[in-house]
């Protein structure tokens, strides 16, 4: 019994002491100087730069200008993360999807593609379920097929700059393909380079 009390007291004291040592969490506003932290890996700001440069290039290229008017239906295809870091490519694609939608020149589909919403297909299986009112079940011939597909790669190249420093370059490469013809209607590349100590790791 005494032993239990001793353990609990020790744990309690330890928790109090360690809490005292740690920094109090602080909110980091998006554009504050404190949020401008540069690491050798891919930072939030790198995703922002890649996305904004890509969107600027895409919108000025005229690739989203549909002949005869209307909006293209764009599907997200494979965007391969071929770097040593593990991150979700949605960090860049989500920013681009928002910008493409806000441009009002194209619309995105979640029915197909690598970033699909599976419920768009699954909800159609309810047609065979008698528990659901037929009038509320999604009818056939309602989905829009994609016309354009956005695909790409994120690549990494590491080289020794000098005795103490290493150079890391990230290549963001994206392409827009006309699905009907297979022709690439837009492509661009954004390169972000960083130099830092050899002791720093990028993953």
């Amino acid at each position: 019994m005494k032993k239990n009390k001793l353990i609990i007291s020790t744990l309690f004291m330890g928790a109090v002491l360690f809490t005292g040592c740690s920094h109090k969490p602080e909110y980091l506003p998006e554009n504050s100087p404190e949020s401008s932290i540069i690491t050798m890996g891919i930072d939030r700001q790198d995703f922002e730069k890649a996305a904004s440069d890509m969107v600027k290039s895409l919108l000025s290229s005229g690739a989203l200008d549909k002949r005869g008017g209307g909006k293209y239906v764009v599907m997200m295809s494979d965007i391969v993360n071929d770097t040593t870091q593990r991150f979700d490519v949605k960090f860049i694609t989500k920013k681009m999807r928002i910008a493409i939608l806000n441009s009002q020149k194209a619309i995105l589909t979640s029915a197909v593609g690598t970033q699909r919403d599976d419920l768009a297909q699954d909800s159609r299986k309810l047609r065979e379920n008698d528990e659901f009112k037929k009038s509320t079940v999604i009818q056939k011939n309602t989905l829009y097929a994609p016309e354009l597909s956005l695909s790409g790669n994120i690549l990494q190249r590491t080289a020794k700059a000098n005795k103490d420093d290493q150079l890391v370059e990230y290549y963001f490469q994206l392409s827009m393909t006309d699905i009907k013809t297979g022709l690439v209607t837009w492509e661009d590349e954004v390169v972000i380079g960083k130099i830092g100590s050899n002791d720093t790791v990028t993953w």
Partner: protein
Amino acid sequence: MKKIYLTLVIVSAIIFAGCAQKDVKVEPKLSDDEHIIIDSSLNSWLKLEKLNYFQKSDGFWVVQAKFKNMTFTNRNVAYKIDWIDKNGFIIKSILSKWKVATVEENRDFIINGVSPSNQIKDFEIRVQRTSIDDEKRKDSSHYEYQN
């Protein structure tokens, strides 16, 4: 004799002053363009050479402003393009944020922009001296080097 020299000097001064005034009138006063707001403290080294903008057939605005660093020192400048909708509101977009550019000595500084949507009615390019906080934001999305 002295009177003749004096008369000549005065007449020449009037003639040349007249020419200069005429040049100023003929030259487009780009800095007065309503689309560009430049911090007057930059006048000592930054010169606006050309502002080009047009609306494409798909409704998107394309903008290019060309400046020149008139000194033989690298300089930093902060800039932003505000895109304004039909109601006069500034649109929040990843294509519109304050950036710092280092402009190499005696080189051009070019601001390129494309509107985030085809519903834009107007734009403003704001060019300012960098703040202390600007100088601390040296990440890839806030900083660029131009030469």
